[in-house]
């Protein structure tokens, strides 16, 4: 205390350190590495909307890496991004808002898991997921809501929904718990090597989910330069500083839409549904998740360049 013993970097001129190679560190890792990281965690959160912008390549990689017993905080609506992990036994617990395939019907693996009680379902909904995520994003203790759950069944069915007295009015209101996650995985249309990621569509839940997570992994259809990113800062959905790893997977959202990039592969979704509904989920998982040795082989199995080109055209209306 009466004698300084620490290092004080302000005492050393920049010159003496500037000799080191001045290179910005890339955050790009392989899809398989990312899968292993996800599989090593206990909870994950997702963005996207229903059958659009799901981080499917990362989900498949996590299943391949043996992900088990995870808790999922899904987007407000999810189809295959929630159903496939359930089919593959990757999830132990799910915060439910909507899992289904809309006009293609209910979600088969989800329904089976619910019936067989192999999945712990927290009966939640849109405000629960979004406000719980927002609370976690800010490290805040809970998210109070009023004139909402008083009129519905959720409080009876969801033990994570509590009551709290509003100190300003003395009224009892409901409190949604914070929903942090170990890892948030996201699909972007473009990202640079430093994590700056552009979602060209999206629902705007990406930032809160990123802030609420300990680790963020972005999969991108395309890797762009930081000069490209700097052309319009307002197009960057997630600042690179919030991102830990970037994975390059063209058509990585397949079989879901990639906003303004390529269309949903409805035929593939139907194939998935048909197999899972007929008790052949393992067959699907073997062929499309386990066996492909890398993402390119996956793309090959779903129809290769002719199919991906077709999906791109479908969205552009050509």
């Amino acid at each position: 205390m009466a004698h300084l013993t620490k290092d004080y970097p302000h005492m050393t001129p920049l010159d003496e350190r500037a000799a080191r190679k001045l290179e910005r560190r890339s955050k790009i890792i392989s899809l398989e590495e990312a899968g292993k990281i996800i599989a090593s965690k206990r909870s994950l959160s997702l963005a996207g909307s229903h059958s659009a912008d799901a981080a499917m390549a990362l989900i498949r990689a996590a299943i391949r890496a043996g992900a088990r017993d995870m808790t999922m905080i899904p987007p407000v609506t999810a189809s295959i991004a929630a159903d496939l992990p359930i089919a593959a036994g990757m999830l132990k617990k799910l915060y439910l808002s909507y899992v289904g395939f809309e006009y293609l019907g209910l979600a088969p693996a989800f329904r089976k898991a619910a019936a067989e009680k192999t999945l712990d379902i927290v009966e939640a909904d849109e405000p629960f997921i979004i406000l719980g995520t927002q609370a976690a994003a800010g490290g805040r203790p809970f998210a109070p809501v009023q004139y909402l759950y008083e009129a519905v069944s959720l409080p009876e069915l969801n033990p994570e929904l509590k009551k709290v007295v509003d100190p300003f009015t003395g009224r009892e209101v409901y409190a949604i718990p914070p929903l942090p996650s170990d890892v948030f995985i996201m699909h972007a249309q473009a990202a640079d090597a430093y994590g700056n990621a552009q979602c060209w569509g999206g629902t705007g839940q990406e930032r809160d989910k990123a802030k609420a997570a300990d680790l963020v992994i972005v999969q991108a259809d395309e890797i762009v330069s930081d000069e490209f990113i700097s052309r319009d800062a307002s197009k960057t959905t997630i600042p690179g500083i919030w991102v830990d790893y970037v994975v390059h997977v063209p058509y990585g959202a397949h079989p879901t839409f990639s906003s303004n990039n390529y269309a949903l592969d409805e035929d593939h979704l139907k194939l998935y549904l048909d197999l899972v509904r007929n008790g052949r989920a393992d067959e699907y998982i073997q062929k499309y998740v386990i066996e492909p040795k890398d993402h390119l082989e996956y793309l090959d199995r779903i129809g290769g360049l002719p199919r991906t080109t077709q999906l791109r055209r479908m969205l552009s209306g050509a």
Partner: protein
Amino acid sequence: MTRIATPGTDRYSTAEFMAILIARYCSGDRELMGSGGANQLVSLAASRLAQLTVAPNLWLFSGGAGVYNSKFDTLPISTWDPRAGYQAESRILIADVVDNGTKGRKPGDRIARGGSGYGGLQIDKYGNINMIGIGGPYPDLKVRGPGSVGVVWLGSGPNNVYLEHHNKRTLVDKVDYRSAAGWMNGGNERFETLNGRDGPQLVWTPICVCDFTEDEHRMRLVSVHPGFTVEDVIENTGFELVIPDNVMTTTPPTDRELDILRTRVDRDGLLKKRRMTVG
């Protein structure tokens, strides 16, 4: 027995007819919000049709994509289809949607009523909606529903309910679980519980249009679509509908309505192929 709900003519499909009915409803000159939740293709088409014909000030919202006033002339496959954002005027965050939902709408608010369509596994005579499941006690469900998503927003203010299937399994006396509050148990319970917010106004189905009685807020038949009878409605409804003495026959679509719908809103004819059922 479940059958495809056909309007008894090949001039138009039931989905086309419903889109036109909802568009007619949006005819006021107030600044209303025609919103479409997930997969609400019919109400999305209706909003666009209304905007192009009688309601230039209507704000069309595509919930899945989070955009206002997109200018598509072919329907996207759902509101989360990126194509639902075609030439939109603005894009909001899902947190904005949640804010609008939790804030709710009071009488006199700028945005007076939603034209949103809500559907469900079950709907009861007071307009409550269930997306959670059928059977119990929870969690031992006979049918596990997909989850409540954002149907809770039916509680945020006056809205409408739109059903693609009219049968006794869907229209039940009392929902097994309540994902969204309609008029709750009727009377003033909703006003007392939800800060005076107005409740559901109309229910559109493939065979009829209903509203709710003024005091008890029980579902009441208003008009029956051409091709169906009051008896068809009663027979396929799982609770006692209020039947007024002057039930109307729903005015069928005009040629001009169909023409605008098909040439300026749904050029690919998605509504022609849409499957709606009765029974």
